[in-house]
């Protein structure tokens, strides 16, 4: 019994001492009982059992007492100096202590805290937590209390002024040597600014994503080996891909999907450019046709750039594809229209220019006629007005000079336009010209005979001007045959090399012929009802400017042949370049300079 009591010392010396005393009493009681009650063998046993039970109770009592002593001893306000908000709870969750900073934050007085403590609520902190966070916080708290697991929770806590701020609450259980929870210790850290920053970050990321998904461009990102990491919404919509389907596959699967969607004609160049870029890290840049979700191929302007880290390693490829199909088509249409316009202009400009020249000459001519008449009248007046007559004479001289200027400018236009001379093949020029006037030939029911010398050398000439000459000659020939019987309407164009220096182009018709084959090249001489007689004059200017000659032969009633010759070698290109717009520009000038008296 004493040995048992001695063993109890290990629970605590006080308990052990008490147990030894108790054991002594018990032994004495057993001894006394055996002496006083002789026949009490059973009684002794009973006393012994009772003593042992009492001893056990004492030991238990001490154990509990010593545990609570430990619990409450630690309840002293030792956490006052904890930075931040600190608190402590009993193992069952009742409030044990809240540090002054926390009290100050939530606006509790010490008395109020005491009241809360006495209330014995295990979720005493409820009034301070935002209602929206309460349910989750309670659940976590209960879970921790029952399981002893550390508590990590984020909730909004009400400040004394009623505003809520985000806090991270972390609490751990303090345990005794037997692993029993003696208390909960918690700290509550203000994470409001952090939460707000996170929210702002999330928002800006969201905005960025929305931006990327909204811009009318197809945007993609890929890993250095070509696996797509991001495809924006317009791209998915445009191509009809699904985000999950295509981005989860391997790089080669994805590449196969893309290449399959590229127009077969563009696949080789696309593949080459893509693999070249992924291999070398050079930016990718290509215009190609890609199949849209509706199955139509559309022109795409694709560009991609790698993002590199500080060591120059590629981290990510960023690419953008622009649908430029409409622009491409508009450009193509514009190009075709330009070409058509240029052809039409080439065909029309000679007659247009002639009208313009006629107008140019008409103005000074009209002034000369009117002034000359006025001059006469001033002199014939009674008495003669010599002053007005003299001034009128000055005006006449000025106007005649202006007319001469116009003529000079026209000549200059053709003699000095040598800056655009280049080697041209006359046979080609003639073939193209015939195409330009093919509708006129058809309309006039005219048979075209072309007899071109295949060995014709090239000449140095202004292609547009020579074209104009040929067009003019062909048109004249067509118009000359209006009254020729249909079966006899034959237009013949022949080229031949006359000698080593000159080649010739002859345009023959079966029209009424020319009466005066020398005068037809003079300006304002015309055999046509509505002609103004500039066409052949301009032709002669052009041909002579190129160092050639133009002449006409005619057998009356059997048609006419207009032939021009050009030197095989181009003449020296030592002439001043001239702006072809000079004529037009000077027209404007003469039109708006009111007083220009002769010097």
């Amino acid at each position: 019994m004493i040995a048992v009591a001695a063993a109890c010392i290990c629970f605590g010396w006080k308990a052990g001492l008490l147990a030894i005393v108790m054991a002594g009493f018990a032994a004495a009681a057993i001894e006394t009982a055996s002496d006083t009650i002789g026949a009490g063998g059973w009684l002794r046993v009973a006393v012994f059992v009772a003593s042992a039970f009492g001893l056990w109770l004492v030991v238990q009592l001490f154990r509990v007492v010593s545990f609570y002593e430990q619990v409450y001893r630690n309840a002293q306000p030792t956490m006052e100096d904890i930075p931040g908000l600190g608190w402590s709870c009993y193992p069952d969750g009742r409030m044990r202590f809240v540090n002054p900073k926390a009290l100050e934050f939530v606006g509790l007085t010490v008395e109020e805290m005491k009241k809360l403590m006495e209330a014995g609520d295990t979720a005493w902190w409820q009034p301070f937590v935002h209602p929206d966070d309460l349910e989750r916080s309670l659940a976590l708290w209960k879970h921790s209390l029952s399981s002893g697991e550390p508590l990590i929770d984020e909730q909004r806590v009400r400040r004394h002024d009623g505003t809520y701020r985000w806090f991270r609450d972390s609490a751990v259980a303090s345990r005794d040597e037997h692993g029993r929870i003696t208390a909960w210790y918690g700290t509550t850290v203000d994470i409001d600014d952090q939460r707000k920053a996170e929210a702002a970050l999330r928002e800006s990321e969201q905005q960025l994503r929305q931006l990327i998904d909204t811009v009318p461009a197809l945007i993609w990102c890929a890993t250095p080996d070509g696996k797509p990491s991001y495809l924006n919404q317009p791209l998915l919509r445009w191509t009809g891909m699904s985000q999950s389907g295509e981005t989860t596959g391997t790089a080669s699967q994805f590449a196969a999907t893309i290449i399959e969607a590229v127009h077969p004609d563009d696949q080789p160049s696309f593949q080459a450019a893509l693999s070249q870029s992924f291999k070398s890290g050079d930016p990718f840049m290509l215009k190609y046709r890609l199949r849209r979700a509706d199955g139509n191929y559309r022109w795409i302007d694709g560009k991609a750039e790698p993002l590199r880290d500080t060591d120059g390693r590629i981290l990510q490829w960023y690419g953008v594809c622009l649908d430029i199909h409409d622009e491409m088509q508009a450009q193509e249409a514009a190009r075709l229209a330009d070409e058509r316009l240029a052809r039409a202009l080439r065909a029309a400009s000679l007659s247009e220019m002639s009208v313009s020249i006629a107008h140019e000459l008409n103005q000074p001519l009209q002034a000369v006629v009117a002034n000359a008449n006025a001059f006469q009248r001033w002199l014939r007046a009674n008495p003669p007005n010599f002053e007005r007559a003299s001034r009128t004479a000055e005006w006449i001289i000025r106007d005649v000079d202006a007319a001469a200027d116009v003529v000079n400018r026209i000549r200059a236009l053709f003699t000095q336009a040598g800056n655009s001379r280049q080697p041209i093949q006359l046979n080609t020029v003639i073939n193209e010209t015939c195409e330009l006037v093919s509708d006129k030939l058809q309309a006039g029911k005219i048979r075209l005979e072309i007899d071109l010398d295949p060995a014709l050398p090239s000449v140095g000439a202004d292609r547009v001007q020579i074209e104009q000459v040929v067009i003019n000659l062909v048109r004249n020939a067509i118009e000359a045959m209006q009254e020729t019987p249909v079966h006899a309407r034959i237009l013949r164009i022949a080229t031949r090399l006359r000698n080593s220096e000159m080649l010739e182009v002859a345009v023959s018709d079966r029209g009424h012929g020319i009466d005066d084959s020398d005068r037809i090249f003079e300006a304002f001489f015309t055999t046509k009802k509505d002609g103004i007689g500039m066409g052949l004059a301009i032709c002669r200017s052009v041909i002579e400017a190129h160092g050639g000659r133009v002449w006409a032969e005619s057998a009356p009633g059997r048609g006419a042949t207009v032939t021009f010759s050009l030197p095989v070698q181009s003449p020296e290109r030592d002439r001043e370049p001239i702006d072809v717009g000079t004529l037009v520009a000077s027209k404007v000038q003469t039109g708006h300079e009111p007083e220009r008296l002769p010097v």
Partner: protein
Amino acid sequence: MDASFPGSGDKPIAMLVDDDAKVREAMSNLLNSVGIETISFSSAREVLEAKLPDRPSCFVLDVRMPGLSGLDLQRHLQANGIETPIVFLTGHGDIAMSVEAMKAGAVDFLTKPVRDQTFLDAVSNAIATDIARREATLTARKHATDYETLTQRERQVLRLVIGGALNKQIAFELGISEITVKLHRSNMMKKMHANSITQLFTAWQSLPESVRRGDE
């Protein structure tokens, strides 16, 4: 050539519109040499912005001008109620254009370079037309003023006289005596400055359509 225009108090003036200063000067010189005053404009716009002289006049318009063409100007003038006659000058005789201009009331359509006599005749014609037009307008205005002075009864008598009714018929129509009709009639004739039925009829004809229909 004699440039006097009988029957007109004011001296006539030709208004030249041409963007080419040389042509403007020359035509103006030619007209001056026969005693016709001129005023020049370099564009149609200038004409529309200017205060035009209240004299017998005509326009000489170049068809082809930058900005508003001569034909455009003709339309604008008509829209503004300006009925001054127009002589067109053009560098190239476009038949369609001249037909359009003539239909719209142009006096002449000439092709540059124009012979002096042709041009001067055209301008004289235009001015004569304008004088006649102005006189007709003046007479009509005078007659309209005369008409305004008539009493209601006199106007009724005038209407019936023009309709060819005899005094007896007028008296019956208006329910008054023949004597009274004669009195009204003589007053009416005096006020209208008419010595005979023919003169009265001419004056009646020159009155605005609305007056003659009796819309007042």
